[in-house]
């Protein structure tokens, strides 16, 4: 909220300098986010001037020449605006003045005519108003006077960040109360500011009150939504602009002046925090106003001429014919004040926070009024504000208050009584606060508190609905006492082992391992397009549906990712566009989907996934990059991942053609102990083409949780061999469809005790091998634990092995 420093000064005597006020407010919980200060410019460079004569520029149709008097001398000014006449009082920037846009005024010649300064528009000097013409001041502004004083731009404005619990600080008076409390100023009773310009003698509200019956009758039918309703009539009005001082205040608060009625309701809203609404009496049907639930009412046209659909629980204000306002949110078009209004019915009511909030949110109507009702309006101010606004309207519009205040519902006069135990203060804060200090702190905030039976009893005032319980009082005491008084003290606790979830420490270890072998980590947003979720179903089951966002920021981020691959592919594309040739990436994070249930009962499933991608030429033994990424390159990464998880023996890769994102002939299911933990393979050519990516892109995605859960214990020490081994090579001729792993598995399956290890050393296709076939070179290592094997022993077992393989797999030995 914007708070002009000078306005605070009307409520707090001996207000300290702006910087001091800002510091104290910030350190007590009312954060001053910024201080807007008047421009730093000598006051004599921007002054009031009177136009003595205006005539056309001899050489330019759209320019005019003005002779002005600046209080000291006559100056000739060339001006582009046309909205001024001789006799007008205007704002003159003399040579040397720096304008809001940063331009410095110089004496110059414009199309042959000398100009000794500039006549200013609002924007040029950072004043309120959006008229493109120059500012025309009141005739009371003396030529030569400093324009900043006249325009009220010599003020500081605080921008306050008000937390949702402090609705009481959404008014100048509320902030002033807080300033008085935190600056240790004596809390003198606050007078109503005068009805005239600031500085005139203050008047007590009671002196304003008019007597007699109101011409209107009001009633509250829905007590849960509207606690109290007040109204008053002001007659004989003439709509016009509000006084300059009021316009300046509103402009400083960020409001655009409109007319004397709207401006007064806004002024009092900002001053006292009570929202007000003015109806044109002539447009109201009958003389009975009621506040009730919308019930069966279906729609309502608000004063911005929009038709709003109503819910039965919305609070509406009705006249004899139907709804005339959406209570606490916005008035209606049919009874709005216009230029021809001569009489108004002014409303000040107390609406329920939650009801107003729900209506305002649903309709997207966030007004200054609804904002304050949501955060709590002080019931002590309701009638005061009504009377003050009525009197100001009567004065500025030349009208009279007719009759007294129409009333329905009781305005609460105080909040609950809350007990505060001194020992509880110490318990929460860590050191005691003397009861006297605590009482003084509460007192400064306007909370009446006394000591009874060793505890403090506090009567909460109506302006602090946020204070409901003991802990709320402890906070008030702590912040007024000063947080800095509670010195740090390390907690004492019994020793215990701090734990990290296994998946987390695994991911942490893995990151450095993968970085060590050349992969870089990316962090991708968890949002995903529906298309990419369909293309990359990730680790979720085939039936799993994507979680859809009800309010996505962008259309292509409408769902939550089911896989980490879209993020990796996006990163690949970004870097390829930037000219990076080799892109090896990994990513860890959650993927989400709904595994069962209907749309009504979404049961989300989150998976801690890990994915990697490699693409582009590799670096070999010679300088430079060669070839393309291959399946084997990514398999090396996968082995590293398995080792990180403590898995020593090889995992199993089973070819699959079921993954929509992977090449059906270059993809595999990753299995540990038969359980599938993820998949690996070449990116599907169609997907690569759609995303304009290199065809040789290889990816895998695995479920970290399954991997970590699988990590086996150490199998125990194997005897270190004492006798030498003997190796034999053999080359098999097989169809291309045969997997090398099948030969290894077949030999393993023979359970020959002398076979120590089987290794694939060649996969050859081409000259000498028929098309559709391949030659697989295998080394078998033989060793005995009992002694050195003889040539004959090795040859015998090798022959058995080769024969078994050719027979079982129906392949032959290459001659």
């Amino acid at each position, binding site marked *: 909220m914007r708070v002009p420093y000078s306005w605070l000064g009307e409520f707090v005597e001996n207000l300290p300098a702006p910087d001091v006020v800002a510091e104290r407010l910030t350190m007590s919980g009312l954060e001053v986010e910024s201080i807007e200060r008047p421009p730093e410019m000598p006051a004599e460079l921007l002054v009031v001037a009177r136009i003595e004569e205006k005539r056309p520029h001899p050489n330019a149709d759209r320019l005019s020449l003005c002779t002005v008097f600046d209080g000291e001398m006559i100056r000739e000014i060339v001006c582009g605006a046309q909205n001024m006449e001789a006799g007008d009082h205007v704002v003159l920037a003399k040579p040397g003045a720096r304008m809001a846009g940063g331009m410095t005024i110089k004496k110059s010649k414009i199309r042959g005519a000398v100009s000794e300064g500039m006549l200013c528009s609002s924007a040029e000097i950072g004043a309120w108003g959006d008229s493109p013409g120059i500012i025309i001041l009141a005739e009371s502004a003396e030529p030569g006077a400093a324009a900043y004083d006249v325009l009220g731009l010599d003020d500081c404005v605080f921008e306050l960040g008000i937390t949702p619990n402090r609705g009481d600080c959404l008014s100048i008076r509320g902030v002033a109360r807080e300033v008085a409390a935190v600056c240790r100023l004596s809390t003198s009773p606050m007078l109503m500011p005068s009805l005239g310009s600031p500085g005139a003698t203050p008047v007590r509200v009671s002196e304003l009150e008019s007597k007699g019956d109101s011409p209107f009758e009001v009633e509250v039918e829905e007590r849960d939504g509207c606690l109290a309703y007040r109204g008053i009539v002001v007659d004989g009005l003439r709509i016009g602009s509000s006084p300059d001082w009021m316009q300046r205040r509103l402009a400083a608060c960020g409001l655009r002046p409109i007319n004397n009625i709207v401006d007064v309701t806004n002024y009092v809203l900002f001053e006292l925090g009570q929202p007000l609404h003015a109806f044109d009496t002539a447009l109201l049907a009958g003389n009975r106003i009621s506040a009730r639930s919308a019930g069966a009412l279906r729609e309502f046209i608000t004063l911005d001429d929009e038709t709003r659909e109503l819910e039965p629980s919305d609070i509406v204000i009705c006249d004899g014919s139907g709804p005339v306002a959406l209570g606490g949110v916005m008035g209606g078009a049919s009874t709005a004040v216009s230029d021809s209004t001569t009489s108004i019915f002014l409303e000040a009511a107390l609406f329920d926070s939650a009801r107003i909030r729900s209506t305002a949110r649903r309709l997207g109507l966030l007004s200054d009024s609804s904002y304050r009702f949501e955060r709590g309006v002080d019931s002590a101010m309701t009638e005061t504000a009504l009377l003050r606004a009525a009197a100001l309207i009567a004065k500025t519009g030349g009208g009279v208050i007719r009759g007294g205040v129409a009333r329905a519902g009781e305005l609460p006069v105080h909040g609950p009584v809350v007990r505060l135990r001194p020992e509880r203060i110490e318990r929460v*804060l860590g050191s005691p606060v003397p009861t006297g200090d605590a009482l003084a702190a509460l007192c400064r905030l306007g909370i009446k508190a006394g000591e009874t039976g060793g505890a403090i009893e506090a009567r909460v005032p109506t302006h602090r609905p946020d204070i409901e319980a003991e802990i709320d009082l402890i906070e008030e005491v702590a912040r007024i006492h000063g947080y800095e008084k509670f010195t740090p*003290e390390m*907690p004492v606790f019994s020793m215990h082992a701090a734990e*990290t979830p296994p998946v987390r420490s695994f991911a942490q270890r893995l990151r450095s391992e993968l*970085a*060590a072998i050349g992969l870089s980590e990316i962090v991708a947003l968890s949002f995903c397009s529906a298309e990419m979720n369909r293309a990359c179903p990730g680790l979720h089951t085939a039936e799993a549906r994507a979680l859809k966002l009800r309010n996505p920021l962008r259309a292509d981020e409408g769902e939550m990712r089911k896989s980490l691959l879209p993020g990796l592919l996006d990163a690949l594309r970004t870097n390829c566009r930037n000219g990076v040739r080799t892109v090896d990436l990994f990513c860890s994070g959650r993927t989400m989907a709904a595994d069962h249930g209907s*749309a009504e009962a979404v049961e989300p499933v989150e998976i801690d996934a890990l994915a990697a991608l490699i693409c582009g030429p590799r670096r070999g033994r010679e300088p430079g990059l060669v070839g393309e990424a291959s399946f084997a390159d990514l398999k090396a990464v996968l082995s590293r991942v398995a080792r990180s998880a403590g898995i020593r023996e090889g995992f199993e890769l089973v070819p699959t053609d079921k993954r929509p994102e992977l090449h059906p002939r270059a993809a595999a299911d990753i299995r540990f102990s038969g359980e599938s933990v993820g998949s690996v393979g070449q990116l599907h050519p169609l997907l690569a083409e759609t995303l304009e990516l290199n065809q040789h892109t290889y990816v895998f995605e695995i479920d970290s949780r399954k991997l970590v859960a699988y990590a086996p214990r150490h199998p125990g020490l194997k005897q270190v061999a004492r006798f030498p081994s003997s190796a034999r090579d053999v080359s098999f001729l097989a169809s291309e469809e045969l997997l090398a792993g099948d030969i290894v598995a077949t030999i393993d399956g023979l359970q020959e005790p002398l076979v120590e290890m089987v290794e694939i050393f060649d996969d050859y296709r081409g000259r000498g091998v028929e098309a559709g076939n391949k030659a697989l070179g295998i080394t078998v290592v033989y060793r005995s634990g009992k002694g050195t094997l003889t040539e004959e022993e090795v040859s015998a077992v090798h022959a058995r092995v080769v024969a078994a393989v050719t027979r079982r797999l129906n392949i032959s030995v290459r001659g």
Partner: protein
Amino acid sequence: MTAGTVTLASIERELEDIERDAVVRAAEAADAAALEAVRVGVLGKKGSLTKVLRGLAGLDGGERPQAGQVANRVKKAVDEALAVRREAIGTARLAARLGGPQVDVTLPASGQPTGHVHPLSVVMDELCGIFLSLGFSIAEGPEVEDDFHNFEALNIPADHPARDMQDTFFIEGGRLLRTHTSPVQVRTMKGTEPPLMIVAPGAVYRHDDDVTHSPMFHQIEGLMVGRGVTFRNLKAVLTEFLARIFGPDLAVKFRPSYFPFTEPSAEVDIGCVMCRGTGSGDAGADAGRCKVCKGTGWLEILGCGMVHPKVFADVGYDPEVYTGFAFGIGVERIAMLKLRIDDIRLFYGHDMRFLAQF
């Protein structure tokens, strides 16, 4: 050879022949093997000199010492010739071995160059590591939450303006994306008896997207509950934590604020890490004010407070018995300050030119 033919003179002559011949052959030996053959031919078991020495037995007793002297001199001369040649051959051999081409030590290393861990991971691990060392365990929770855990149980009822503090992404069907890591507090307390000390790191989501906000970012939530945990304890733990990240002489201040699930609540400011709390920046730019702290000398770094009794009541802890504190740290914010990163979107832009700097 018979004893009669052995005379001192003949032996001396024979020895001189051996010497002359051996010296010449040693000098001509092409390599170590040839030189060894020369040595064996003269000094070996069946060598010519060895043979002569054996023949000395046939001499008179008076002549033997003189012949022995001559033989020793010859042996020495042969040894010396062999040694000289051995060294020459060794030097030549080494020179040949060292004479190959110069290795170009400036050529690139083979194999894949090293990759990079994401700066957010680096910072997240560092922050968690500090809390682990202080005795906090790490807890995790779902990112897709329900209204109860994200709001209700944290004293943020429906239709309460505190909900405006956190613009929420809603999932069709009623769930939402957690707006903070605080729901992990609730989930942990519901399943554990006090005392407990946890931090909950993870991704959170806000319906917000501009230069200073990302719709997804990361937080670390902290919670300590037990008997006698106080606001002063909170200040001590967080001051220690901040000193470990930003350095021991860091200025820290706690300023009253509002979070629905803590009371009293505080916003923690630290002395600006860029201008060292002076508020001044490069002369000329931004009117000489520090850009990072906007000239205030202070930076808002985290939010914290004492756990609200309503939150305890909701999870079944007796607020009269237990007290506790909670805090929430923005990981991006800390990473940006520590690593001097000025645009939050760089973290999620995947640009290797950025990532490779960490």
